């Protein structure tokens, strides 16, 4: 529980220029493989203070006493001169609201995640026609409470919970093997079918005998592949200075609208600024950027509510919180597929997406299925598409309506996407 004494002490030492953050989190994890079973229970506490005393200082501790020990040590370090940004003043903790005292019985507050190893094993086997096996499944259910206070009088408290996991499958054909991981987060009911399909395809398609048999065509991106590309592109929305190719005006084709809106996840960001919907690319034109308090102050504007704290150990930085393609004007994925005369459906990545926003370059390596006359024809073990980001964005001709979210690590949502006139290697 944050107490008034600590706030008074911070105000005395750093008048008008401090922010205090505290997080408590509890989680239960179940990892099951063919031969092993692991259970983990974790209760983590973290405190962080950010203050401006000449330059920015940041101190963290795993409890209040360690935080108190870290503050003078951080204060002794030299820093670059920078004024404190204007802090948000809106949030107020509801009457009587404080981070609750820990439950008396350990491991009682968060229920254990379900054991879904057996049903997922069966689904992976079915979808891969026996060529892939589920090697391990880790599920984690967690709950976190965050509290933010600052010298402008804002008091914010947020509670969140989630169920996420990692599954690993092995595909085998003759002497060849392939491993595939799938990271997922379930906001509602467990989507075993979706995870099993991705694992089965990702572990078996690379075992195909050959790559693409044609060098140019349409490129259909599975939602998981499109989401990974969007996540790799995210620095473009937060950079202090825009690269030259972005300054030319429209950076994507008209069907592309990209939004960040974490309203459903949390009412405030990691600095206590209210969450709001920000349209980043509208009908192909870059119309907005994501800011936290510091980047907004540098740009002479206001925070957009995108001060992100990946952990209490890191100071907030500008970043996406729930980034997605808008799909209001989309078509069904079946219609997209039917319209492809010749191309490749990229089902899974075989290497991390490479994006160099400054140099306007990207490279995507994937496995998938060749398409001909609107139908799947044969598996493609591996293919590569590379070139200019600006060209790729300009050649997105349609987006589908089947948007799905993936934790990369924040939620990134994408539908099936069609890109025309792509060169395959």
């Amino acid at each position: 529980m944050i107490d008034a004494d600590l706030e008074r002490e911070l105000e005395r030492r750093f008048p008008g220029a401090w922010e205090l953050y505290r997080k408590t989190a509890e989680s239960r994890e179940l990892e099951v493989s063919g031969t092993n079973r692991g259970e983990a229970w974790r209760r983590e506490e973290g405190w962080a203070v950010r203050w401006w005393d000449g330059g920015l200082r940041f101190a963290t501790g795993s409890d209040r006493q360690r935080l108190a020990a870290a503050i003078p040590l951080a204060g002794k370090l030299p820093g670059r001169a920078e004024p404190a940004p204007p802090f948000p003043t809106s949030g107020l903790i509801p009457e009587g609201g404080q981070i609750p005292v820990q439950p008396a019985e350990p491991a009682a507050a968060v229920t254990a995640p379900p054991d879904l190893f057996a049903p997922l094993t069966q689904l992976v086997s079915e979808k891969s026609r026996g060529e892939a096996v589920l090697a391990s499944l880790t599920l984690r259910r967690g709950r976190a409470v965050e509290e933010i206070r600052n010298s402008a009088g804002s008091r914010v408290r947020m509670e969140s919970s989630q169920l996420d996991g990692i599954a690993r499958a092995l595909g085998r054909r003759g002497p060849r093997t392939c491993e595939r991981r799938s990271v997922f987060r379930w906001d509602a009911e467990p989507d075993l079918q979706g995870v099993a399909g991705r694992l089965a395809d990702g572990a078996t398609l690379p075992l195909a005998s050959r790559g693409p048999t044609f060098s140019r065509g349409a490129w259909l991106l599975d939602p998981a592949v499109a989401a990974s590309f969007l996540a790799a592109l995210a620095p473009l929305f937060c950079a202090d200075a825009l690269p030259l190719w972005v300054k030319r005006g429209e950076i994507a084709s008209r069907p592309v609208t990209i939004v960040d809106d974490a309203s459903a996840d949390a009412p405030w960001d990691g600095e206590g600024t209210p969450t709001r919907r920000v349209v980043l690319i509208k009908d192909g034109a870059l119309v907005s950027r994501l800011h936290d308090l510091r980047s907004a102050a540098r740009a002479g504007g206001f925070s957009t509510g995108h001060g992100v704290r990946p952990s209490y150990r890191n100071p907030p930085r500008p970043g996406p919180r729930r980034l997605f393609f808008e799909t209001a004007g989309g078509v069904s994925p079946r219609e997209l597929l039917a319209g492809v005369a010749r191309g490749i459906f990229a089902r899974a990545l075989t290497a991390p997406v490479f994006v160099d926003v400054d140099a306007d370059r990207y490279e995507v390596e994937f496995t998938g299925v060749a398409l001909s006359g609107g139908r799947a024809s044969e598996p493609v073990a591996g293919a590569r598409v590379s070139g200019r980001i600006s060209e790729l964005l300009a050649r997105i001709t349609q987006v589908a309506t089947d948007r799905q979210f993936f934790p990369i690590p924040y939620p990134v949502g994408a539908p099936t996407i069609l890109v025309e006139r792509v060169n395959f290697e």
Partner: protein
Amino acid sequence: MEFDEALVARWLEPFVAGRGDIAEVFAETRRKTIVEWRDAEPGDARVSIEAGVSARQRRGGRERIAFVSGSGEAAIREAVRALQASAKKTVLPSRPAPARADFEPGPSIERWVRRLETILARHAPRHRLRWTHEEISRRVVPFGSAASTSTRRLFSLDGSFTAASRRGDEIRSFSFHAPEADATADELRQALAAAAAARERPIPFGDGIADILFSGATAAVLFHEILSHALEAETGETPLSRLAAARVSVSDLEVRDDPTRLDLFGGYERDDEGTRPRAVKLLDAGRIAGNLTDRAHADGRGSTGHGRRAGPADPPLPRGSNTVVAAGAATSEEMIRRLGNGLWIDEIGSGTVELSSGRFRLAFPRARRVRRGRFADELGAGFLAGEILPTLSAVEPVIGRDVRVCRSLGWCSRGGAVVPVQGEAPEVIVRRLSVRDR
């Protein structure tokens, strides 16, 4: 980290029913200082002081772990209570106690900041670098054996700087990781000076197959990926799994994993299960010679002392530490001549391996083309790719004589768990690796 070890051992006793069962308490305090440097001026600064404890039980293939933030007897009691509740055993009564800051500040931080200001201003005045200093103290109380304590101080400098090339300025990446020692500052000076040396402007190169001379200790990164990871017990089936004692490479090649090398970033006096580590030969005269094990995966000789945790919230896993390649007899000139035509690579930025298929990939920021045994064009960034067994069998039977430490290799992530690693190696030639331009 003051607590009564005998009392903790008594708490752990009910978790051990038979031979092979493991029960232990692991406690860690960690102080981390980070300063962002920009053009020889310190920028954002942060200090973190953390403590955490976990209690663990392993029986057969079933493992339980309970973690709480904090230190001392009260925190350990909470972790043990959670483990008891999970194992459906009688739960100790709760006795919360206020946390105590038990970390004495070290005097070296401010001295390092002053030194860095001078070193950076002289050798790389235009830069964006992050300096990290970590002091990690760990204590393990295993049931049935003696408790152990270890402390490591780790120094890292990571980022990029602007260097002069023959045709203008260019941004180069820089990574330096070392355990804190008297010689660290001098080593850093030398590493920065070497990284800032003038170069020709790189030219693009095509994709294809090439012979590679791994210079500047980069062979340590290669063997870290394809040998150390592949021989970690518990990795499942890898191309090396069923090849114990089989000859897979030239008889001149000897590679070991040596955590006892405390002068390297991945060294330690005790592993995270309290076991005193020993150097393990991975490849002896070209033959597969051993696995890296923790207590749960030990053979008859016991754990090799490679049970490592990213932190107290994670269970220990068998992980590599320092990949050390033994010296041969060839000079650098002989190695270049032996390469003939190919690529000379003295920096590797990152590496990955998919253990089930054995496919690996190494990213390099620059290379030099070698033609007829002589240096030719400066090349830009690219990838090397290959598979474990074909690569091991393609090692040239001539090894360099000068062994160097690979200070750019510092942290290794497996399944999200990050541990310090390093290595040293002489020059090694590998034939017919796949090369791709970036």
